[in-house]
């Protein structure tokens, strides 16, 4: 929402930062503790697109929930524009891996939800929502309920629902993992287009290395769980604007992929071995 006062962050202040964040959960038996994330420090500069890759079940989503303020870390803290985060992160928009639309609201009422919570009059909110639905390519689908939309369309609605509030930080938790490859590449290109029009800070979680490289300015590799922490960081110096399908064929992409995969591979194998036990 454009009405919220915005601090102009200095160049060196990260839009989002984790300071030695650890998250432990109670285990299955009393007294047992499971450390999902351990001593993780990570930052996202204003306007930067950062992807976090790691093997399945390594606590990537835990990290994102901390950034969203949905989960308080066991130790350490999250900073937003340099200020410690308390409660829900109101500067962030969150796109979930699972379907998060309200099934009893049609597309347009789902998109207006955030504006409605902020007390914006119905008419104005609906006008904005129509614009956003058009921007994500859903003209004519305003009155469809989520179950009447395809997986890709539901993701578009979720994207519009998040972006209509104009958040400074986008938190995305494997948002396209449930989509087929073609729809996925379309969505990735659309995301890049929307992002480059109005550069927001993005923390993008994925297990798909190619997706991470194609989208990001920086890729962070996490270790296999438990006690996940970053073990590698790569700057992606591919030129923008990018087409996610074409960029995969460029030599530099292949080079980066090889370099990151060398680090990621061992962790994936570790994660796989653990999952089998």
């Amino acid at each position, binding site marked *: 929402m454009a009405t919220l006062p915005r601090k102009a962050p200095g160049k060196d202040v990260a839009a989002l930062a984790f300071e030695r964040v650890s998250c432990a959960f109670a285990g299955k038996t009393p007294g047992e503790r499971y450390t999902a994330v351990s001593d993780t420090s990570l930052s996202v500069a204003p306007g930067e697109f950062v992807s976090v890759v790691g093997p399945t079940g390594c606590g990537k989503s835990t990290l994102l929930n901390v950034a*969203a303020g*949905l989960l308080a870390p066991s130790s350490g803290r999250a900073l937003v524009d340099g200020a410690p985060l308390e409660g*829900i*992160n*109101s500067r*962030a*928009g*969150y796109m*979930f891996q*699972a*379907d*998060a*639309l*309200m*099934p*009893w*609201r*049609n597309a347009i009422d789902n998109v207006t*939800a*955030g504006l*409605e*919570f*902020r007390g914006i009059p119905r008419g104005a909110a609906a006008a904005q929502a129509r614009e956003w639905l058009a921007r994500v390519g859903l003209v004519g689908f305003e009155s469809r*309920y*989520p*179950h*009447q939309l395809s997986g890709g369309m539901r993701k578009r609605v979720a994207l519009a*629902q*998040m972006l209509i*509030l104009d958040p400074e930080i986008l938190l995305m938790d494997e948002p396209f993992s449930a989509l087929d490859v073609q729809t996925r590449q379309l969505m990735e290109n659309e995301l890049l287009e929307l992002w480059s029009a109005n550069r927001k800070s993005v923390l993008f979680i994925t297990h798909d290395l190619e997706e991470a490289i194609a989208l990001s300015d920086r890729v962070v590799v996490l270790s296999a769980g438990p006690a996940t922490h970053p073990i590698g960081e790569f700057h992606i110096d591919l030129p923008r604007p990018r087409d996610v399908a074409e960029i995969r064929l460029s030599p530099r992409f292949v080079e980066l992929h090889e370099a990151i995969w060398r680090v990621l591979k061992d962790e994936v194998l570790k994660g796989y071995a653990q999952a089998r036990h």
Partner: protein
Amino acid sequence: MRRPDTDARPGRGRLALWHAAILAVLFAVWYGLTTPGIVDEAYANKIAFFFGRPLQVVKVVITWFTSGKIYPHLAITLWETLLAFAVGSALGLVIGLWLALSPTASAVAEPYITAMNAMPRVILAPIFAVWFGLGVLSKVALGVTLVFFIVFFNVYQGIKEVSPVVLANAQMLGASRRQLLRAIYLPSATSWVFSSLHTSVGMAFVGAVVGEYLGSAKGVGYLILQAEGVFDINTVIAGIVVLTIFALVLDFIVTKIEARLLVWRPRAAQTEPM
């Protein structure tokens, strides 16, 4: 859950034919067994004493409607049903919401809720008659005790099963606790209430009729009670027939309302009209 079938369903006509045929056979057997001449007269009269005679029953029903004698009784029963349904649902919704959202209150109330639900509530009818008299109120009270628990448990379950992702998403979109209640919990709970609508309307109806039967001065249950007192089995069965038709009509209305209110519910293999 039952679903209203779409008009295009193939074999619909044949299905109706089957329904009619079964009904016709039942009537024929009933008529045959109670008519002297088809069966030995002594047997026919005995069977008729216990089961009534179909033509007599139809005659009673027709006289009720043509003379208008039935309308005030039907109106009373309907009124009791509606009141019991409305009050029971409202109480179930409010208390279900409250207990589901407040762990302490739910922990305190839990044994009482379980006990009250386990109790055969029809047994309360004499007490309600003492408290509220023989009029409408005592029947409504009985219906409320029946409806309340159905709605209550459905709302409670509905709140507990709100998708955590949908909830987290609404929080991220900036919903306050109050707004979460309005935008997430209530719609989710009401959808569960609607899915129990058939049962709860049926229960409200049961409460009304049983209440009337146990002591009243009006209503279809009262008509049945009176006829039973003089062994007028034809009138008793006529009352049962009217109640059954009435229940079917209520069920039909509920199905229509449900289809309208739950449009957002996914249905298996739904196609779009072109």
